């Protein structure tokens, strides 16, 4: 019986003893619920088995009933996955011992079933009694619910085939439920004090732990990745698609022109970083030839790229005078290739 139903009951009692007292403020509206009405409504079965009707049923009778009323949707063995997820299966004898279904955490289970998840047998009883069969809920008598539940427990290999389930031994069955230790109340979603203090919640404490950083915080944000060149223009002008305020801005992509410019800008950076710009000018000779001179000399030679890559790597003298170019073995081949391509396409 829930708290709500208790208060109704109290109201009903008060109403009975002091005739019009409770309903004075709503004259002519409603009447106290009769005890029969409360009884018809108050059918829930709690984990501590409060509300559990008296009765019993065996596996064999349960098999008959299941075949008649349940199997069309759930399958003869509770295995059907078409209307509802399977009722039975997925647990091992070891799970019955430990009270925690291992397949749930190991990822071994291809499909969760009712009995891999449920941690209180009263819930299954309550559900069958309240909602099953789908076409005629609340039509099952307590003995029938016991029988069907006994059959399900037998399918799950929790009880033997000659077992009779009743209100007397359902508590013992609870102690064999495969996932009986699988429930946590430590998530702040349930009301009341913690389980240790006799409540069912944890005092409303969330299970996330978003602590503000007060010391040893990260001093700055490091950019871990950038937009790759080939993807720069994939989504148009990003700068216009982002908000103009707040911490995140879209980078300027502005069509293929901007992409090319951006690519060249990064190659220029690469050239500077690699030390090329110390000796080579963009359009003039410094120590070695300017890039424009290199481009002019090699224009129209299809093997120029490969030749130059080798030259940059090994260094050498002769082609442009006697001052040698130092070898550049420390540069990645990929970078050298990029630089040579950039020079031959008219470095800007």
């Amino acid at each position: 019986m829930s708290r709500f139903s208790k208060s109704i009951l109290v109201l009903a009692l008060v109403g009975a003893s002091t005739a019009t007292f409770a309903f004075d403020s709503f004259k002519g509206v409603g009447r106290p619920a009769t005890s029969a009405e409360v009884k018809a409504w108050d059918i829930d079965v709690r984990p501590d088995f409060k509300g559990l009707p008296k009765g019993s049923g065996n596996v064999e009778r349960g098999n008959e009933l299941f075949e008649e009323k349940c199997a069309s949707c759930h399958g003869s063995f509770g295995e059907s996955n078409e209307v509802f997820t399977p009722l039975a299966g997925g647990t091992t004898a070891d799970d019955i011992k430990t009270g925690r279904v291992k397949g749930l955490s190991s990822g071994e289970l291809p499909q969760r079933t009712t009995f891999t998840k449920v941690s209180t047998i009263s819930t299954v009883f309550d559900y069958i009694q309240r909602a099953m069969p789908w076409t005629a809920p609340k039509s099952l008598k307590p003995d029938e619910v016991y029988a069907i539940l006994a059959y399900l427990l037998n399918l799950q290999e929790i009880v033997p085939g000659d077992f009779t389930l009743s209100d007397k031994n359902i508590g013992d069955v609870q102690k064999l439920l495969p996932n009986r230790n699988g429930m946590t109340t430590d998530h702040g979603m349930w009301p009341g004090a913690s389980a240790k203090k006799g409540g069912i919640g944890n005092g409303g404490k969330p299970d996330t732990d978003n602590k503000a950083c007060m010391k040893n915080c990260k001093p700055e944000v490091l950019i871990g990745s950038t937009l790759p060149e080939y993807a720069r223009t994939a989504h148009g002008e990003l700068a216009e698609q982002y908000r103009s305020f707040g911490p995140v801005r879209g980078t300027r992509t502005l069509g293929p022109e901007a992409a090319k410019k951006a690519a060249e800008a990064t190659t220029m950076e690469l050239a500077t970083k690699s030390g090329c710009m110390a000796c080579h000018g963009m359009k003039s000779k410094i120590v070695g030839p300017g890039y424009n001179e290199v481009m002019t000399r090699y224009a129209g030679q299809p093997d120029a790229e490969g030749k130059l890559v080798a030259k940059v790597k090994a260094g050498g003298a002769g082609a442009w005078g006697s001052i040698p170019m130092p070898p550049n073995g420390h540069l990645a081949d990929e970078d050298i290739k990029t630089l040579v391509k950039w020079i031959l396409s008219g470095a800007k």
Partner: protein
Amino acid sequence: MGNPMKIRAANKDGVTEIKALISHEMETGQRKDAAGAVVPAWFITELTAKLGDKIVLAAEFGPSVSKNPYLAFKFKGGAKGDKVVVSWKDNKGDSRTDEAVIN
């Protein structure tokens, strides 16, 4: 010797319906475990159902059949109280036989 099968047999208007839930790993031999090693194939290759001495179903299973397969079939004949025997063999040479009484 695998785990027992669950078998239901029911006769209605001269037609017997058999439903069986077979407990078997049914490994295809295509899967790899966390370490990247192939999980060896392990599946049922043959399944027969008999009514008395008469074979009412002979089936060849293979790796495409699911884990813990469910099998249902009907045949004409059989009467209440008759015994139906279902047995399988797998590629590791293991086998299992279970029976049910028609009701």
